């Protein structure tokens, strides 16, 4: 409907508007995940017996998912590099690979949770599991949302349109990766 306002093109702060906005989004997400994870950490440090519950998470599955996300961050930043070079088709391809990584992550998680739930570790089994499913679930929602936006950006990038958005969704994606980098030791390793 509306043309882009002149306001959007200005950058008095020295950083383009889109990138500035994504960093503010990341700041708000730091405190959302921060609040949740700190609540978890405080409980975890207080309940020595949670280590016994945590032993039932699969370190290998967690590590595999970490590998998936790290690799998808690689493809995301390679997409950024391609977009900077003006190669929309390559940027889109890299974004599709990243989105495929997201899909893999979600499928592995779905399988992992199915296994855990069928063995009786549900969200109400103990407060450890409540935090486990809530934290990983919130993260997974961000993975899914990120993947959807990524596909939309890729569609435009394929036609060499809005190439600057490749970097922006990549920035968000790296943040999603960062959250997992901390979730992995918190939920899977500390036992």
């Amino acid at each position, binding site marked *: 409907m509306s043309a882009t306002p002149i306001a959007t093109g200005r950058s008095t702060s020295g950083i383009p508007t889109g990138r500035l906005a994504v960093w503010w989004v990341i700041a708000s997400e730091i405190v959302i995940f921060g609040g949740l994870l700190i609540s978890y950490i*405080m409980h975890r440090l207080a309940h020595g017996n949670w280590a016994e519950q945590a032993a039932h998470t699969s370190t*290998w599955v967690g590590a595999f998912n970490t590998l998936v996300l790290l690799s998808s961050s690689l493809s*995301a*930043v390679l997409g950024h590099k391609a977009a900077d070079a003006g190669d929309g088709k390559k940027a889109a391809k890299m974004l599709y690979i990243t989105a495929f990584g997201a899909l893999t992550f979600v499928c592995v998680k779905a399988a992992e949770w199915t296994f855990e739930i069928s*063995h009786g570790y549900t969200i109400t089994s103990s407060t450890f599991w409540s935090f486990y499913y809530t934290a990983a679930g919130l993260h997974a929602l961000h993975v899914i949302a990120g993947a959807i936006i990524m596909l939309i950006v890729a569609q435009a990038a394929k036609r060499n349109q809005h190439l600057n958005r490749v970097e922006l969704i990549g920035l968000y994606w790296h*943040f999603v990766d960062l959250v997992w980098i901390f979730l992995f030791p918190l939920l899977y390793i500390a036992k």
Partner: protein
Amino acid sequence: MSEEVHDTHHGNYVKIWAILVVLLAVSVVGPMFEIRVVTLVTAFGVAIVKAYLVIKHFMHINHTPRFIPYLVVTCLVFMLLFFAAVAPDVMNDTGSGWEKPAWVAEEKAWAAGGGSAGDQHPQP
């Protein structure tokens, strides 16, 4: 806009990825020694290093105006403040004039039996 300047900021991303994967391996292997300090250092120390690498090399934080790292650090500092002020209440099972009986009982049972008498057992 500074897109032209941007190109020279692209480093060797595959190399960074390889380092990240090695670090991941370290963090998985570390706990296998079952020494608590080693586990903590490999798990959380590695996480911090990985985070640093992603923020610096993938997110290019060095090429953003300075207030952005300040913003991120400020948010993290506030999270630490939150932890410091709340931990005395939430992390403890007794305080001055109160106790959480269920927590106390749980910890006693766990310490005594090395088991999980206080936990709800998962239903097979």
